[in-house]
């Protein structure tokens, strides 16, 4: 092929491309609304991905599968609970036209995803990761969190301490930055409220033997033990505490200590443990009743907190998108900022414009024995704390 020919060919190609390109610019309306979901499906966190997927799918189904008059198309990708695959897959989803990213589960993966979504100006919907840093003032323009923050859950634990009339508290926190900050905040506020702090221990994250610490605590006169640990660590502690009878004369509680999945892992020793609850199917409001009914009809199980939060966040976000009547993502961001959802499954939620964190009530519950059709161990919601006491002013 000589130079002239190839030049003509290139020019022709360019013209065709330019034409189709301009065509797109005019229409600017894709065939479908593409959502890229990056959630853990393999590995130990797979259970979180499963619940989130079911909740989000139901949210889309209950709106007729459409947004902006176009069908919603979700691509589910496995993050393996690791940052590298999460980012890699989100990158691919975005380059194949995803309009938003939904995920991830662990705070580390979510933080990693924020890098790419901010860069590409794609909205990121977070409905589980609780690290406070994910939403902060002047932080991430395209990140929205509709679920709890750890800071808010710590404040719930403080409110509970006061409400339960605990006078002397012992602290146990997994040894990492977020929990240490949480403990410092709790300690200062609790002492201001007249609660005596008896002691604190920081066993490593992923610790497997708490027996010495449990023995130590049992010898103090503390009437409450706050456990700033999550997941398996909390299960291990409660199992071993139960075997030593620690819960007999001390209240065991924590910001994210228990839900029904974790209580089932502990067994009867979990009864009496109190914890912040992200979402619960027993909440008495019309939106939640409709959701729980639909969920049970579709999946034949009670929605867990991952499913409930995912359903709520996804419904809310898509409503916000619909309200703009536009395919301009900047419009979506503006619409979501400051939007209020009166009928969320957890009551009123407000997306704060300054940091993109949803203000909401905080649920607090205690593990009790359940009867069919409920699970053997269920959370009973004992307190609902108002957003005013849970969310401080917007912080950087």
């Amino acid at each position, binding site marked *: 092929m000589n130079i002239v020919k190839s030049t003509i060919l290139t020019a022709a190609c360019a013209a065709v491309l330019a034409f189709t390109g301009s065509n797109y610019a005019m229409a600017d309306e894709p065939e479908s609304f593409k959502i890229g979901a990056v959630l853990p499906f393999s590995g130990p966190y797979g259970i979180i991905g499963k619940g989130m997927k079911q909740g989000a799918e139901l949210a889309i189904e209950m709106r007729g599968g459409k947004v902006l008059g176009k069908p919603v198309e979700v691509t589910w990708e496995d993050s393996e609970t690791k940052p590298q695959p999460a980012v890699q897959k989100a990158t691919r989803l975005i380059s194949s036209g995803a309009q938003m990213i939904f995920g991830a589960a662990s705070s580390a993966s979510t933080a990693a995803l924020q890098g790419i979504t901010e860069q590409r100006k794609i909205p990121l919907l977070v409905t589980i990761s609780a690290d406070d840093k994910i939403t902060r003032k002047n932080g991430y323009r395209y990140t929205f969190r509709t679920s709890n923050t750890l800071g808010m859950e710590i404040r719930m634990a403080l409110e509970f301490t006061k409400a339960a009339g605990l006078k002397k508290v012992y602290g146990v926190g997994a040894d990492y930055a977020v929990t240490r900050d949480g403990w410092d905040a709790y300690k200062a506020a609790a002492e201001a409220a007249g609660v005596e702090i008896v002691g604190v221990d920081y066993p490593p994250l992923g610790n497997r*033997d708490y027996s*010495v610490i449990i*023995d130590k605590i049992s010898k103090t006169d503390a009437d409450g033990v706050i456990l700033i640990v999550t997941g398996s660590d909390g299960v291990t502690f409660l199992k071993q505490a139960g*075997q030593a009878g620690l819960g007999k004369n001390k209240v065991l509680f924590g910001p994210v200590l228990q839900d029904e999945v974790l209580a089932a892992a502990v067994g009867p020793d979990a009864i009496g443990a109190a914890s912040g609850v992200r979402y619960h199917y027993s909440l008495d409001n019309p939106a939640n009743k409709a959701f729980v009914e639909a969920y049970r009809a579709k999946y034949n199980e009670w929605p867990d907190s991952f499913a409930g939060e995912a359903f709520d966040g996804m419904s809310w976000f898509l409503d916000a998108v619909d309200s703009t009547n536009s395919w301009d993502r900047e419009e979506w961001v503006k619409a979501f900022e400051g939007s209020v959802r009166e009928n969320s499954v957890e009551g009123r939620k407000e997306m704060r414009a300054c940091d993109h964190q949803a203000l909401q009530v905080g649920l607090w519950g205690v593990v009790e024995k359940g009867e069919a059709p409920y699970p053997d161990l269920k959370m009973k919601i004992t307190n609902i704390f108002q957003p005013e006491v849970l969310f401080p002013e917007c912080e950087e």
Partner: protein
Amino acid sequence: MSTIVIGLSMGMLLFLLAAGLTLIFGMLRVINFAHGSLYMLGAYLAFQMVNVTGNFWAGLVAAPIIAAAIGALMERVALRPVYNRDHVYQLLLTFGFILVLDEAVRIIWGLEYKQMYPPELFAGAIEMFGSSVPSYRLFIIGFGAAVSAALFFILDRSRYGMIIRAASGDPEMVRTLGINVSLVRTGVFSFGAGLAALGGAVAGPLFPIELGMGFNIIIDSFIVVIIGGLGNIRGAVLAALLIGMTRALGYSYAPSWVDFLTFILLIGTLILRPEGLFSRKGRTA
């Protein structure tokens, strides 16, 4: 005082977790990375047995037997073809086992946590030295001591132990004596797999039974084996007790440094005596 009892139980538990690893290394010169997965499998199997029969002891017996059968299969199908290659290949094969075993457990039991409880007999707590020590911890001390004694007897004193040691030292010689070395190797690997599962079954009532649990203990087991001297049962017991005691003291005074204390022991050992603190012979690999 109660700290010492708890430390003893932590040490014995560590020994039970690491015994299979040390056995397989000592006799076959294979570092079994899948040890953690077999341990996890043991916990799930025990859970399943307890669920079916309602009896803790049934789980404690059945889990190791089933895992031993699986171990025998792994050895026959995968390890046997690579014994005459570099040790690296055997290690890497066991690495592949991790992925397959973990996937199998996920397919069979799903993602939810499973749980099991101490047997009736050891359900409560006993008051001693002014604290209430869970009696299951005392059971672990006794059981660990019994297992270590049995292993010591089998490997050091019995005819089987002699054959096994001879087969690992000089397979050709043993073969000419008319002993089936392949069978001995299968037996040892299978026995080690059973021990790993036994560790899992014993640990079941203490920890959540979940998919990641094997990953968590493998490093601990390695540390026991290195400090004890690779493949040395007596050393493994002493090392496990040393680590257990160190950790128990660590938990009472500086819990956030517990992992470091363990590593300080490890690195100290490596600098002073790379062949292991409790090793009688020189280094083995």
